[in-house]
């Protein structure tokens, strides 16, 4: 089996799937060309991430990493959450096949984007590193959308409607 037991558990019964109405922040990462698109919704209180939900269109690893990232980030402060790396996710899942490690990066990216969105909405200062990450991630998302029609666009509208 290419996936660990832990990955399969998170894939078969993901934690925190769904959306959050009136989320304090929403982040998107990934693109449909690589087959994986993730959205993370966060609810923040006193700088602590109280709740997270995700939507993930993608492979087993995309779903499992989305699930675990919501678990790991829950209860963390914004700063703590920003310190999380994809390695934390890979470890928590008991490993990922080499070709799927990029999913753990996507999950971290989606979380970062949700935090970015939250900070932006709060008019708070964006750490320089997060700003750079945001530029990269949103470029990846945009570039693809331009090329591959409006599927993700529609999906985003649909999801943001749902909140």
């Amino acid at each position: 089996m290419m996936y660990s037991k832990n990955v399969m558990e998170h894939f078969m019964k993901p934690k925190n799937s769904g959306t959050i109405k009136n989320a304090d922040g929403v982040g998107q990462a990934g693109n449909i060309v690589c087959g994986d698109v993730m959205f993370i919704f966060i609810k923040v209180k006193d700088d602590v991430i109280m709740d997270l939900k995700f939507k993930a269109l993608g492979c087993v690893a995309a779903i499992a990493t989305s699930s675990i990232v919501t678990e790991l980030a829950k209860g963390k402060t914004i700063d703590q959450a920003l310190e999380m790396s994809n390695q934390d996710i890979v470890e928590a899942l008991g490993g990922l096949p080499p070709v799927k490690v990029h999913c753990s990066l996507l999950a971290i990216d989606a979380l970062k984007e949700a935090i970015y969105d939250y900070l932006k909405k709060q008019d708070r200062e964006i750490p320089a590193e997060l700003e750079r990450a945001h530029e990269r991630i949103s470029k990846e998302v945009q570039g693809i959308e331009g090329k591959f029609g409006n599927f993700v666009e529609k999906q985003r509208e649909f999801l943001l409607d749902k909140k």
Partner: protein
Amino acid sequence: MKVYLDHGATTPVAKQVLDAMTPYFDKKFGNPASLHIWGTEAVDAVEKSRKLIAKRIGAKQNEVVFTSGGTESNNWALKGVAFANQNNGRHIITQKTEHDCVLKASKWLETQGFELSYLGVDNHGLVDPAELEATIREDTILVSIMQGNNEIGTVQPMRELGRICKEHGALFHSDACQSFTKEPLDLNKDKLDLITINAHKIYGPKGVGALVVKNGTKLTPLFHGGQQDPGRSGTINVSGIVGFGKSVEIADNKKNKLMKNLRNYLIDRIMDEVPNSFLNGHPEKRLINNANFSFKGLEGEALVLRLSARGIASSTGSACSSKKLEPSHVLMAIGRPAELAHGSLRLTVGWENKLAEIEYAIDMIKKEAKWLRDIGGCDDV
């Protein structure tokens, strides 16, 4: 319930086949190259299989050379023709939806000074004979076009393509791994020079195949050595070949009809009952056991593994590309956008499948597709 719907990847060995093979492991275990009675007993068994296979493909007995499978046969056909005929030209034609082993062997030949042309296919996966006609040249030594596609099942117009090859003096090879015994193919009538076939797609064992080589075809060996089989060296896999022969013997129209009926039922119900589903491949000119869908708003690997957890074997893309990231080269070649290319599911039925199994699979596909679309935020697409 356990339902195996991945016969395009491999099949179980049929009981009759296994029974035929068994004595050749520990009782009649001789090496056909040996002079003694153990050896001659083995030769007899191998020749019986060779005859059965030759007959089915319209070849002479000495035109069937046993190999370790489709991958060897395809590599041998391409590289063997290239090396042996380079004085006549260095141009080879194949097409975009070939099996990985043909495409990768072709790419390697490009590094060895050969020029490759890859024909395109239409939205149904069909090669256009006019494109072949326009691409074939004076210095084209080989045209390699698979008969039935392993992913989307599309069956190519072999006879037309063969005619064009002959008119231009190019050798014609076909990878018939998926279509052998399912679609008619005849070495002479279809103007072929080389045909790749294997056993493990037709209820025979893994690790056995053949390259059918029309007498007189110049071909450099891939395996040099004692030439245990003409042009191919290596101790002959007697039990495997006996199994291959038997698997061909038991493949018949009745079983084909059975597979086609199950497959048609499957396609009809999935297309009706799963919203936003698309059939990949040609609606009629397709392998009798192949169904391939794209489902919008979900990813194929995830669906395969959800179905596996329900006891159902299926695939996305080809089995061998399941460890890769790129969307299927076949679905891209027929013009599916990435979103659909990623969301493909191949179901390949077998004659041992029961209708109840197919029904269970349909129920589970509906359920799991919905679950995945929901978790992906696409439950309305």
